[in-house]
């Protein structure tokens, strides 16, 4: 058999195996992934203490949950849009007699979201301190005043944002 055919055959076999493996490595798009806030950042998995967490799925609006279950409602994100989801929290540190480290969520607070220096929309955190907002792809400023978060929203992507609204020195 000519060497060229043998080489092409070998290349084809290698490509097929690699492509199959790569495809298998991809997470099925219908799977919900859970993220909880650990006081510093969002971490994968639901919260062990029964507190709220965010369920995220590709190209779907995230849902805030307290029990690990697939959300019954599934709202697709419009084409060309992404999501900013997060929590407003109070950081707690210190403790002379025990650890005072942790966080406390801030419910029902308004959050101004602006882009290009102009207000775009105002959202409010829920009873658990979480917020979810679907936005067209662009760069946004979340919050107002001297402390803000600059987030670049990409189509189909959910960006998780913890917003520290205060520090609490516990001793």
């Amino acid at each position, binding site marked *: 058999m000519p060497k060229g055919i043998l080489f092409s*055959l070998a290349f084809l076999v290698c490509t097929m195996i690699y492509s199959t493996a790569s495809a298998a490595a991809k997470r099925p798009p219908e799977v919900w*992934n859970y993220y909880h806030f650990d006081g510093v950042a*969002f971490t*994968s998995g639901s919260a*062990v203490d029964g507190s709220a967490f965010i369920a995220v799925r590709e190209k779907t609006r995230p849902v805030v949950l307290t029990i690990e279950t697939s959300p019954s409602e599934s709202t697709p994100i419009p084409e060309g849009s992404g999501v900013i989801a997060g929590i407003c929290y109070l950081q707690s540190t210190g403790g002379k007699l025990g650890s*005072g480290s942790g966080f406390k969520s801030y419910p029902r607070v308004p959050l101004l979201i602006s882009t290009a220096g102009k207000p775009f929309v105002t959202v409010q955190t829920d009873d658990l301190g979480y917020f979810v907002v679907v936005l067209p792809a662009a760069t946004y400023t979340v*919050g107002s005043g001297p*402390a803000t*978060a600059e987030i*670049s929203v990409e189509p189909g992507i959910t960006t998780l944002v913890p917003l520290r609204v205060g520090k609490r020195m516990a001793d």
Partner: protein
Amino acid sequence: MNCFSTRISLILVALILFSTSVFAGPLDDYYLQQFDESKSVQLQKAVLSLPTDVQEAARCGMPLKHGLKRDWKLLELSTQKVLAKQLALPVLSGTEQTIVSPSGRFKIHYTVTGADAVPSLAWVQTVAQTFDDVAVSYIALHWQLAPTNSNSAYDVYLEDLAPQRYYGVTNSDLAVSTPSRQNAYTSWIELDNNFTDSIYRNYTPLQSLQITAAHEYHHAIQYGYSYYFDIWYAEATSTWMEDELYDGVNQLYSYIPTWFSQSTLSLDISESTTTGGGYGRWIFNRYLAEKHTPAMIRSAWEKLADISSPGGSDIPMTPVLDSLLSSTYATSLSTDFMGFARQVYMRNWITHLAETDKIHVYSPDATYVSYPVNGTVSTPSPSVTLPHYSFAYYKFAPSSSVPALTITIAKSSGIQTAVFRKSSGVITEIISTNGGNSYTDNSFSNADEVVLLIANITSNYESANANFSTDGTTLAVTAMPTVSGSAATCFIATAAYGSYLHPQVQLLRNFRDDYLLTNAPGRAFVALYYRCSPPLADFIARHPYLRAVTRLALTPLVTAIVHPLLALFSLLLFGCTVLLLRLQRRKAASLNATRYIVRDI
């Protein structure tokens, strides 16, 4: 054709074996999620982008909170209870009453019923007077008092904090930026209502009140300088101020032993009474105050107030201290940290002399009684790896068989050493020879003890190391540069596997720690890797296919670490196969050549 089939088979087997690692993506997510440990691979962008994208403290709760405060008295009590809990305002167990301190600076909120009830009105007045005294003391020390909302009185709430095991709590409130204090915030304090619970048993209620008022109100002052203070230094300063204002209580000395017994932890680790982080570091402030005057500590906070927050996060304090010491006091944090480490042993404190005995003595990491001391026979091994701004002591007990002691040290960049000799209770420092790598005590057998101090006095080397002996033998050393972000991380592997906690990454980290960092060539390789890999890892992390390819490429290494014998066997097998094929090829070529020769004949 046979040769081709053999090669294809080998390639197929290798690919199938290597490709199994690609399946680790969802598998590790599954396990890491089960153990609630890791960040996910699938939404890596969302998670990885957080630290840089999120600036801070959008004061998202503040407008509503402000309005709620304004309309508070218009609300029903039941509504107040619900909203106050949600917005973190204190809700006392009974009807809230207030008194204003004699100076008018403080408003004390209290109740006389329920769990939060105060013991008496006299106690509330004592609280008010104590806060006034604290404020006067801080004014005398030239600290700028804590800002308040609309220049009203500073709010202090008396609550039953014993169930939460707190003395007091200081909460940030509103931004009150001024030209000189751009990051200033107001605050309010919660204090235990009586300090009579058994958890406060070592001190009288008045003593607990005094040090807590001094401590918490200094946090309030700190919010006024900059909201973005580094928490470890905030606790170190508030704790130091307790003794500056109320010298007779002395609770703060109880936080020192946990630091000195774990002095190989960095100066700026997170606050914790179990490690001495934050609270225990107050003694470093005393050293700085003794060397440069107490005003130096205030100057450090003033310098902090002039600095903008890096992306909305807290401002690291060690560079601020270093900058101040360099610019104003003609020294550096490195010099003063080494001076402090020396002071831990020498104990020649010059203030609060009546309390010097309360300062915990140094804690040696090892005491050697048999000689020689070297890396072969001594336990624990005479070597140490130190993170930034940390130190370790080693004690040598005199031996009649060792009339003179020479300590030879090999040390990496970032390390500085000193040797002390104590005889009849008198401490002298032994001058080094051989370029600072050797110390000799010619009358060792007559000494009480000889002590070696090894300190990493820089922030540039996260894993500086040193080893020593008494017989002149030492090992090579290499310092690992400090890497911003997660120090000592296998960057490329983390990017490829999607999580620092992935078992394969842990495996590689262990291999690095157990095999590479234990020898000079390995340490040199790791240092080079840490210099070169972060940008590459960042690129890999953002490209899913590259991550899969990297996992494939890392598989032979991971397999070799997990199954070294199997890897060796495979390598030998591979080598033999290649050799065999080459021999066969040569034989075939030789036969062909013979045929041609025969034909020619």
